[in-house]
């Protein structure tokens, strides 16, 4: 069993920075969990604590039932792929692959056999006698993966492994990593600041901000029901639009500032909001695809149109509030013109203006 339990984990650095605070999470066996967040959010520190490269100042880490906080990194039966790959530059690819086995006393013949097997699987066979600096970024990444795989560890830790690659290679390796995870079925903890990677690869995503866990959920949950304003703004490109508004009617309508007609909510959403007092101020969150251009009763002024080929991003002014919407590239939209707009009421998000928390949980 290789579940990973983080139990009220905390990390203070000597300079007083609190890198991670009260972080609890159960990572299931065989899960691909992504720690997502902007730089400085504590995701890499968390990963390094799981690896044993940083000592937590509070809380506990368990693999299955075994507490691992006091174990040296080499005794935790984990493997890590670093952002810079950290291949040993003076060793050949084969020596790099065999190194973890050598340090664990695996006999030479066995080491050779396993390195050959992995080289075949990762298609790096012809590179076995080369040194890391003679390899391309993608090839180095494969070797780094190979070195992680060779010991058949319980848990894989990946620290932004794709961020040094160009876009094409990144897409290719992303797909390879997904396939690899499906094939070996091991627990993987993946750190990235790239929400696209997180959305495409993960079983679940844990969003971190300022050392605190903001939300854990499937990519779909995180995208469709963000727990707070930070998650809502961090996940999704272009980012979610935020408009000021208030709850109107019987709690079944939302008045958005600058829009004359309040938006009616579907009954199931309205029911969730009924307990909130009417006339309460809210922040209305709308994804760009949920603002429809060229239809509806409300109107907005087009500020700018960015054609992307398959679609266009339309920058709108709604009563003095700026928003971005997606529109079909076939529509003829021109800057400075006025256009009709509509909102997908069922997909509208409401947040508390003070705390930023989602209101209709």
């Amino acid at each position: 069993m290789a579940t990973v339990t983080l139990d009220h984990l905390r990390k203070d650095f000597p300079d007083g920075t609190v890198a991670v605070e009260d972080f609890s999470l159960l990572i299931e066996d065989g899960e691909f969990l992504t720690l997502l967040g902007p730089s400085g959010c504590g995701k890499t520190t968390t990963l390094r604590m799981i690896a044993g490269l940083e000592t937590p100042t509070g809380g506990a880490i368990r693999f299955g039932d075994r507490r691992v906080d006091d174990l040296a990194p080499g005794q935790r039966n984990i493997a890590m792929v670093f952002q810079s790959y950290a291949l040993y530059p003076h060793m050949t690819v084969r020596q790099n692959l065999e190194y973890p086995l050598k340090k664990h006393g695996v006999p030479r013949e066995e080491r050779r056999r396993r390195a050959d097997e992995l080289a075949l699987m990762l298609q790096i066979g012809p590179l076995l006698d080369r040194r890391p600096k003679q390899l391309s970024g993608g090839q180095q990444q494969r070797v780094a993966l190979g070195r992680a795989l060779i010991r058949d560890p319980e848990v894989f830790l990946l620290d932004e492994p794709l961020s040094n690659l160009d876009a094409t290679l990144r897409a290719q390796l992303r797909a390879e990593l997904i396939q690899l995870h499906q094939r070996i079925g091991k627990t993987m903890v993946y750190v990235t600041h790239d929400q696209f990677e997180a959305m495409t690869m993960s079983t679940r995503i844990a969003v971190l901000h300022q050392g605190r866990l903001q939300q854990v959920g499937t990519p779909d949950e995180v995208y469709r029901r963000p727990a707070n304003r930070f998650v809502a703004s961090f996940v999704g490109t272009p980012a979610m639009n935020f408009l000021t508004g208030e709850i109107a009617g019987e709690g079944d309508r939302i008045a958005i500032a600058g829009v004359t007609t309040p938006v009616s909510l579907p009954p199931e959403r309205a029911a969730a909001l009924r307990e909130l007092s009417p006339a309460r101020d809210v922040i209305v969150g709308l994804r760009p695809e949920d603002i429809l251009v060229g239809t509806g009763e409300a109107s907005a002024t087009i500020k700018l149109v960015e054609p992307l080929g398959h679609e266009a991003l339309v920058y709108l002014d709604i009563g003095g509030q700026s928003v971005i919407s997606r529109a079909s590239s076939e529509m003829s939209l021109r800057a400075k013109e006025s256009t009709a707009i509509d909102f997908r009421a069922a997909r509208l998000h409401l947040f508390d203006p003070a705390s930023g928390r989602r209101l209709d949980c």
Partner: protein
Amino acid sequence: MEPSNRKRESRERWLGLALISPTMVLFLTLVAYPLAASIGFSLFSINTLTLQGRFVGFDNYTRLFGQAAFWTSFQNTLIWTVSAVSLQLLCGIGFALLLHRSFPGRSLARGLVLFPYLLPTAVAILVWQWMFNDLYGIINYGLLSAGLVSKPIAWLSHMPDAMVSIVLVGTWKLFPFVVIAVLARLQTIPEQLYEAARLDGAGVWARFWDITLPQLRGVLVIVVLLRSIWDFKEFDLIYLMTGGGPAIGTQTLPLMVYKEAFPLLNLGRGAAVAVAMLVFMLAFFLLYFRTYGKEEEER
């Protein structure tokens, strides 16, 4: 080719020659001429004071190679160079590793370790001679007080103690060079290599052998090369410590050059020893470069 292009190329060629000419003039006057003059002198029997002499061909060399003192000096040079360079490497790497770790007062310690290297040799040797003095030196005092010896040791007038003394002082004086070079390299080794090794199950020693040493290799090759050249021709430290004594117990080839050329006033013979030194060094470094140059290419 267009005439204007040809003109420009010719102008650039002249400009290139003009730019390297100052270096060439310096090289010819400061390196090539003295070297040629030394080789020339070694073929003459010349009085150092009058600079009068006659051409003797290879007589200086045949005489030299038949002289036991020459081979003893050669042997002494090898013993001194090999021991001093090895000890400097050992201490240099050790101190560099120590100073690479973080501890309170590290900057001060890094500055202090350079002290022996910066101290003028004459001053340092004066102090060491006092310390090694058999009657009132602190070293003998310490050894006697601790009961390690029953009577004072005549460090500088007895063999092999005299050689041990100059090797120890040489190491003390010169190891900071190794510290600087190794410390500079240590700071550029990515921390992640050590982290990866820890995850791969490497302990402290394994990390030193498998990461640190291979990473230091390049700088150590250069350090060994430079320190060997410098220590092979070290003069002032040995001359001031023992003057080559007792008898010729610590006389190295540079001291022999000096002795032949100045006290014995035979510039030709002194030059012949110097040329022999040059040949030994060239042979050593050709071998050295062949061994390490090839390996570096393979990397």
